[in-house]
């Protein structure tokens, strides 16, 4: 009998262990795009009022965060964003290690709660990043979450993986025991009133320092941080087509760059690398112990502008884009990736959009602090759902036109 009881207790304990959310949880679970998450923030009433009142400042406030039954205590949160900053529905950055350098959550140092104020559909950012990932472009993991602050619903948010050392480790893996995340990570800083298209700005490092915010190795010498960027920009501007690949290739992953701008064009991102007001919205990473840089996608919430967004829009404006695509091999790759994107999107993009809309629908309707009405959401939703089919056709036709291939049916 005693043996039976002991066995029973062990079985119950085992079952409890299996069902424990803590044991099973990983950051992949947190960013699982198939799940509408729920995140609770608990912070002092005064602090929440202060954060909303001073939403243009980057002041940190302490909070506790609960997800899926797990609470992480004393995290730091602050208002974030550029044009998306809001006093009623603040975009938030959550730093788990703000007040204790050793505190991580599911291996993460931080995450971003995107307030979705610039996207009345609520799914452009998450759809774009999933699509990039399908195409092998480095992009953060994302899903949606209901956010509750002190028990009250604070709106529908995008739950976004921070582009930081942790993500670099995930993306670039390890060589032996050495995680490849000790390179130099930069967030591109859009300087208001000073659009930049990769033109050389002189040998002084200040202009590059202003445009590339360093996120790792901040204490290193300025020459070590921004010197290679100055050199890259100079070489891109000064090198002839004949020497371009052999000169620039070791300093920039050119095939990855072309894949990135081509995919960004496919999703009709008007405020990206070849943006309407110069470059914008990306991270830039110099690999560990290397002089080679790569681009990392970021902030695509104004993508899907229109289906007939020109497939070579502003490619001539940006020095890096123009000089790279002057090389026949890269020009060919550019159109090839557009075709690949169209193929990838043909059986995936619209169903994915529909799935995400279904997932967030109630949360979006119940979000009373968003800066648009439910009617506006419904209208934009229908417009977005019409994008995939029209865009796929348009891109296929335009690529055929550009490359001299046979035009598919349906082209105008």
């Amino acid at each position, binding site marked *: 009998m005693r043996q039976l009881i002991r066995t029973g207790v062990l079985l119950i304990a085992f079952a409890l262990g299996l069902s424990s959310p803590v044991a099973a949880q990983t950051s992949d679970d947190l960013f699982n795009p198939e799940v509408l998450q729920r995140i609770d923030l608990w*912070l002092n*009433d*005064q602090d929440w*009022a202060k954060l909303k009142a001073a939403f243009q400042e980057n002041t940190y406030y302490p909070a506790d965060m609960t997800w899926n039954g797990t609470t992480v*205590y*004393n995290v730091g949160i602050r208002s974030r964003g550029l044009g998306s900053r809001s006093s009623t529905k603040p975009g938030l950055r959550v730093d788990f290690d703000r007040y*204790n*350098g050793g*505190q991580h959550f599911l291996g993460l140092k931080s995450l971003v709660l995107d307030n979705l104020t610039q996207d009345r559909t609520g799914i452009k950012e998450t759809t774009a990043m999933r699509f990039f990932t399908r195409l092998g472009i480095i992009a953060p993991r994302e899903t949606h979450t209901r956010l509750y602050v002190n028990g009250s619903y604070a709106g529908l948010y995008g739950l976004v993986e921070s582009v930081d050392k942790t993500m670099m480790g995930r993306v670039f893996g390890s060589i032996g025991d050495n995680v490849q995340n000790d390179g130099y990570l930069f967030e591109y800083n859009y300087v208001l009133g000073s659009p930049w298209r990769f033109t050389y700005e002189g040998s002084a490092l200040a202009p590059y320092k202003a445009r590339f915010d360093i996120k790792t190795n901040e204490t290193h010498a300025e020459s070590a941080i921004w010197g290679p960027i100055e050199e890259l920009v100079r070489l891109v501007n000064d090198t002839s087509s004949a020497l371009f690949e052999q000169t620039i290739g070791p300093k920039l992953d050119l095939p990855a760059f072309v894949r990135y701008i081509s995919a960004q064009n496919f999703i009709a991102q008007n405020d990206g690398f070849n943006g309407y007001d110069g470059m914008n919205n990306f991270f830039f990473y110099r690999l560990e112990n290397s002089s080679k840089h790569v681009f990392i996608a970021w902030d695509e919430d104004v993508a899907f502008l229109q289906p007939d967004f020109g497939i070579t829009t502003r490619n001539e404006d940006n020095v890096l884009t123009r000089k790279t695509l002057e090389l026949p091999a890269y020009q060919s790759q550019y159109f090839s990736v557009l075709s690949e994107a169209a193929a990838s999107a043909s059986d995936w993009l619209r169903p994915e959009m529909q799935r995400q809309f279904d997932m967030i629908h109630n949360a979006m309707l119940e979000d009373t602090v968003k800066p648009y009405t439910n009617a506006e959401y419904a209208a934009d939703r229908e417009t977005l759902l019409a994008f995939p089919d029209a865009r796929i056709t348009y891109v296929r036709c335009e690529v055929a036109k550009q490359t001299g291939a046979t035009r598919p049916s349906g082209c105008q």
Partner: protein
Amino acid sequence: MTRASTFALILIALAAQPLFAQGKKDKDRRGFVWDDRPTIVFGKDVKVAVTGRALVEWRWFDPDIGEDLFALRAGRLGVKGELTKHVDWEIEREIGAGDPNKEDSRIEFGDWKDVFVRWRTYDAARVKAGRFKIPFGLEQNTGVSELDFAYRALGSQKIAPGRDTGVMVSGALGRLGYEAGIFDDDGDNAEFSENQFVEEGQDLAHVGPSYAVRVTGDLFRALGVDGRLRSANLGFAYTNADVPEGLNSLRGESFWGTEDFFERVYVKGRRQRFGAQFDWTPGPTSLRAEWMQSREQRKEQSNRNQDLSDFIGNAWYVAGTWFVTGEDKDNNIKIRRPLLKGGPGAIELAARYEQLGFASASKSGTAFTNPRADYLTPNTDSVFTFGVNWITSKWTRVIVNAIHEDFEDATRTPEPGTSSFWSGLVRLNIVF
């Protein structure tokens, strides 16, 4: 040469005046006389004197923490006087020299310092009203011309309240001295430095009123002990104030004030200070020690609006001095061989060890630097100061100090990642 430097040189020149004026005082004269300082005597027990001070410093730092290498640390001008034998008064204001690196730097008036009137008819009960130092802290209540080091200990600067506006009764009852007062706020050292957050319709809150009491006594003299121990003096002090909600706590600043090694935390409720002091000056030596603690309540200050454990500041120091030239350390140091009479002046060696640290009463769970954490990551600054004081006259002294700071938490220092810092200074004190 900047205007600030010019001002410093003018004060140095002025300070030379009293050197030559020594011995000229005439207490029976009326009109302008030199009574340790420029004084106008209107009659018996009615006079007005001009007071002033300038502290000029040359400093060095290792590692460099971005501090200026020259500073007119504090300039003050004031007047003080007696109205009758029953009443005396004082008015003193800080003079700031603008940015010494700017060509157009100007000498500007700064904060009011002592501004008070005192009724002193009875030794057992003197009444003082106005702005003056709250009776907490031996060193904080010691005038700058009598300090043994260029700077007061960190606890005297950060935990002791300093000046405020209020009313105080003080006096001597046998071997016991007492001071008790009520003050508008809680002292300059506890003043808010950040803007308060108030929602529409709310008024700005302020600290206080605060209450302070200090009792001192010649312990060994009272016990009938004779000899060198007669000069030992022991004291205890206490303050109490209500602090409004916000980032209003006391804080730990590094020695040069370049960085908070413990930033303010959210508090609400009662702030108490407890202090004990010991002062002993046998012959040419002295031994001084103080301990003080602050305890601040944090009602409803957690992330979930619940009470947190008290925020506690602890500070103490032990300091010793020795006049190698043999002067008696008791009040009114009389230089045995004055500089102007061919002697070396008075030379004193000094050393002090001190600590100032902040932490929470709670020590359970994981510690955080979050200003709303129940268990706050502690940090303490431990400081050695070694000094030589060269007292050249009643009004002037040169202080040489070497200071070594060592922080418990290397991430919260003037240069994160570095835990130990050396600095030094040569200061010219001119006080009249």
